[in-house]
């Protein structure tokens, strides 16, 4: 496989507006949520601390995973839309698919570029966000915070796969991002409500977007991981087959 186009795509993504917006938004979120924690009255802070699961890297991580991460799905979705929609929007998809490369190889290449560049940008954003929070709030286990973000990647890949799947029929970035983001939000709200209603409960392993909570709370991961993995593969394969057989 020729790695040159993949490397070029990754390079383009790393210097794109999408990348800078990701890092900026993560930093802004971290700053504001760190301020929430810092300025909280003592009794409220105590209440938050009491709710923090034992496996968490600290109070900030609890808030981050519960409130912020779901909004960051938009970022994941925007990277997922990169696979097909970017090319369709600027009308280069036909040109690229007319090269001597199979659609499957094209999809693998674009998915790899998208996932790798997202991973790099997301971890840079996490490092900055964690650094900001650590400087303001203190008491954040920064290495654990970073490790948890790496461990959350299967869940984010599921969002990727979801977006890719929707991008096959929708094609345009606008609608793909909207649908991908809305579905992710609904899935994440679903497990959140369940958890808020009964804090002692464990979120269902069948909701892939509860995987992040399980990582942070130190809950058993194996079964939930298989579910996320299977769903992700199913979505990628179904979307891929659909795309490979579709008239463009």
């Amino acid at each position, binding site marked *: 496989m020729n790695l040159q186009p993949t490397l070029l795509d990754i390079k383009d993504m790393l210097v794109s507006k*999408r990348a800078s917006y990701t890092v900026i938004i993560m930093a802004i979120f971290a700053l504001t949520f760190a301020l*929430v924690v810092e*300025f909280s*009255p003592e009794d*409220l802070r105590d*209440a938050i601390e009491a709710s923090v699961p034992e496996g968490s890297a600290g109070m900030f991580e609890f808030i981050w995973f519960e409130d912020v991460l779901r909004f960051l799905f938009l*970022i994941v979705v925007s990277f997922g839309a990169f696979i097909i929609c970017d090319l369709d929007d600027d009308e280069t998809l036909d040109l690229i698919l007319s090269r001597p490369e199979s659609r499957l190889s094209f999809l693998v290449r674009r998915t790899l570029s998208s996932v790798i560049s997202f991973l790099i940008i997301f971890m840079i954003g996490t490092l900055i966000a964690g650094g900001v929070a650590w400087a303001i709030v203190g008491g954040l286990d920064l290495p654990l915070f970073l490790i948890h973000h790496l461990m959350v990647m299967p869940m984010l890949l599921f969002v990727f796969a979801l977006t890719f799947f929707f991008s096959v029929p929708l094609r345009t970035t606008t609608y793909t991002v909207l649908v991908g983001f*809305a579905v992710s*939000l609904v899935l994440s709200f679903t497990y959140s409500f369940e958890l808020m209603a009964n*804090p002692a409960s464990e979120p269902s392993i069948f909701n892939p977007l509860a995987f992040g909570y399980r990582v942070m709370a130190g809950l058993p991961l194996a079964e939930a991981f298989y579910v996320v993995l299977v769903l992700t593969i199913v979505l990628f394969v179904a979307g891929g087959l659909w795309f490979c057989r579709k008239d463009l």
Partner: protein
Amino acid sequence: MDDKVDFLAVIWHRTYRMLFSVRGLLALLMSVYMLVAGAYFLDSLMEAGTVTGELYALFIDRPDLQFQWFFFDGAMSKLVTIFLAPLFIFDAVSGDRTGERIGLVLSRPITRPTYMLIHLVSAILAFGVIFLGVLIPGYFLIHPQVPELTASAYLATTVLMYLLGFFALCVALLISTLVKSNLVSFIASFGLFSFLMMPNALKYTSDVMVDVAKFTPHYYATYFTTHNLEGGLFIAYAVVIILFSLPFLALAILRIRNEDL
């Protein structure tokens, strides 16, 4: 306003198209979902010993305010500004630009301010039909769960939320005129509104933040989630939210008015 082009017919056409589109469906599903969740999860949420539960304790004798606070301040104000309202306008100008449609549309006998108003008014209507269309009848779903909640208090906050949506529409329209890509416009709107809602979210945690929150329309839109309804204040706050919005609309129109396309 141009008197020969039927402004209402244009608006109706666009509004209708938006309502029966993917975005209309998404907005409808999200609104219904939030309403049902608000109506049926509330009881258990109020009893839960979580952070939210601690905050509910602030209005221990006022289930109506507990509901208003959870539903509007905690959920709806975020959903409206971050997702629902921008959904109808984030690609208004940027979409016309990227699709190179803007030349076709502006070669018609309409002024550029009219063009912007067509986008804004149709988005206001489409958002209104879905948001108010779900929330107003939603009272009959919620009232049995929270009998203390009066229709007037619920409606007043619903209207203020709608006006908060108007603010979001004006700001998102400005963003859409400033950037050239739909995706960047959506992400920028999302980022900005996430940031703008923060002072209001922080107002429960410090007095300083209450003062900061007063510089955002969110504070006025959610005021009656923690206070008893007063007619005079309601009108005043509605006007305040509109005043927050108009400069953004003016900037958007000025921006497009002077631009070579």
